[in-house]
């Protein structure tokens, strides 16, 4: 479902070129949790952004299913992303003026599902924020916000789930809740790729990729 072919990304500057990713090819198995590991500056975030269709590699290809991501127009890429990829940022980035319900609903409307009540209450129930649906993001704790962000990224049932340091801001307890959900999501048949420093997340990985 997701595959990297000879990816290279070089950040070019006037003085120095930074080689963030060098000729990397990877394929992934359905239902597996893939952990990307490496020291700071090794290009983990860069790789994830390229995987998510948000950063064009200098050479090489990213595939979502049969779609060569960077060979399609940006308009089509946007549409594909809405149905193929769920992306979690370290800083969740919820939309501040929409309540929890609408934050989760938003990606669903992008694929034409305007009234996904059942799906949202199901999801909210599972991650324990069902009673907070009418609240705005700023009324939630950090852990709750990250759970909403996770909910949002999987609301569409995207086959691919990408997460950059999903537990980076969380305490032990919230991390555990989140890790459990990620595990479940993988078992439900998603392709999961996580960038992390967190040892507890490392533990649940089926495969660790060192950069």
């Amino acid at each position, binding site marked *: 479902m997701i595959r990297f072919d000879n990816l290279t990304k070089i950040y070019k500057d006037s003085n120095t070129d930074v080689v963030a990713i060098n000729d990397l090819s990877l394929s992934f198995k359905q239902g597996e949790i893939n952990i990307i590991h490496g020291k700071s500056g090794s290009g983990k975030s860069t790789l994830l952004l390229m995987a998510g269709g948000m950063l064009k590699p200098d050479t090489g290809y990213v595939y979502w299913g049969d779609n060569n991501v960077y060979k399609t127009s940006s308009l089509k890429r*946007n549409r594909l992303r*809405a149905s193929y990829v769920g992306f979690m*940022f370290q800083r969740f980035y919820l939309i501040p003026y929409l309540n929890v319900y*609408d934050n989760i609903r*938003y990606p669903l409307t992008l694929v034409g599902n305007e009234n996904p009540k059942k799906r949202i209450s199901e999801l909210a129930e599972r991650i324990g924020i069902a009673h907070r649906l009418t609240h705005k993001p700023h009324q939630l704790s950090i852990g709750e916000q990250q759970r909403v962000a996770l909910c949002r990224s999987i609301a569409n049932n995207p086959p691919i789930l990408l997460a950059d340091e999903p537990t980076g801001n969380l305490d032990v307890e919230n991390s555990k809740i989140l890790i459990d959900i990620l595990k479940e999501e993988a078992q439900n048949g998603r392709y999961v790729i996580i960038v992390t420093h967190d040892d507890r997340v490392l533990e649940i990985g089926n495969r660790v990729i060192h950069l």
Partner: protein
Amino acid sequence: MLFKIVFSQIKQKLLVTLMLLIAMIALVSLYVYIKNTSQFTNRSMELIMKDMGHNYNLISKDCKKIDSYLINNNQVYFPISQSDLLLKERKMPSKYYVAMQQERLVVQNTEIILSGIKPLGGNFESPEKRNLLDAVKRNEVRLGADIAKSLNLKTSDTINIEGKTFKVATIIPYNGDIDDYRVWANIEDTWEVLGNKDSINILLAFLCMHGTNLENLLVQQQILLKATTPNLQQIIKMPIAKGRDKARQSTNKTLINLFYIISLITIIVISVTGLYEVHERRREIGIMLSMGTSYLKIIAVFLIRILLLAIIASIIGFFIGSFLSIWITSSFLETNTQNISIIWSDFPTALGLTSLFAIIAQLIPVIKMLSLDPVRILVED
């Protein structure tokens, strides 16, 4: 969802949105107010000008102007049929004429100017486009104020002029000129009294003169007259027409410049607010784009919101501007052809232009937004 986002954004930034709305309302109000006021003033000027009387008179080419001014016995008669030539000439700026026979007489030791008139020209088109004088009925007269006073006459009294008896139909209020000494009658009656049947010694007309260049127009007029009725010469009293033309031009010029200034301010206010907003919302925009939202949808949010504000601002601004102009001018301006009231026909223009400028102005922040790279925004901090 689109409208939900629009309204949620408005709610989130209520104060900024309100300020923007108020600024837009103020600009629309100001323009509507000034436009209405100048239109009412212009109409009022027209009435004042007409009250000053005929400004375009035609006399025989063989008559010295001074003889006509003094209304003495050296005035030269010409056939009334000359006016047919003028009426037939479509290019003449006046479609209405008053044929007049005027002579000085003494009645009961009082000097009068007997003025037999016949209004000429088609049916009155509108209150504005019509003869300044109405016909006088046979055997009736209208009296100038000084004559009525000297002869001690009231309405319905009778007066004998050269053996013919007339009934006083109206007494005209003081005018402060020679008209106060006129006795207006039907021209058929004056022909009976004074002779010279089917002849007149002056044709009265009225020119509005709203041409682009007044001087030019007068020259054209002279040429046209020469071709149409070579036996006549024109006497033009133009200061009022010129004054009105100048007033009209200066309001037009003021309005057009005001329009540019207001449009520019509107565009700047909206653009700056919009740029600020794009900056404030760059992360939200980034996250939406990263989720696969099309640029089109994000642009739509911006445009729908500004359009909404433009519609509200033009409605409220239109009414504020209209009421303000009515309230201020109605106490002292008098108009005939247009009431001092809301000019509804201006509303679509106000709505259309405000919306158009709002959208144009919003395109600047939209273009700025299009240059946003979602990744750059989301990883920069």
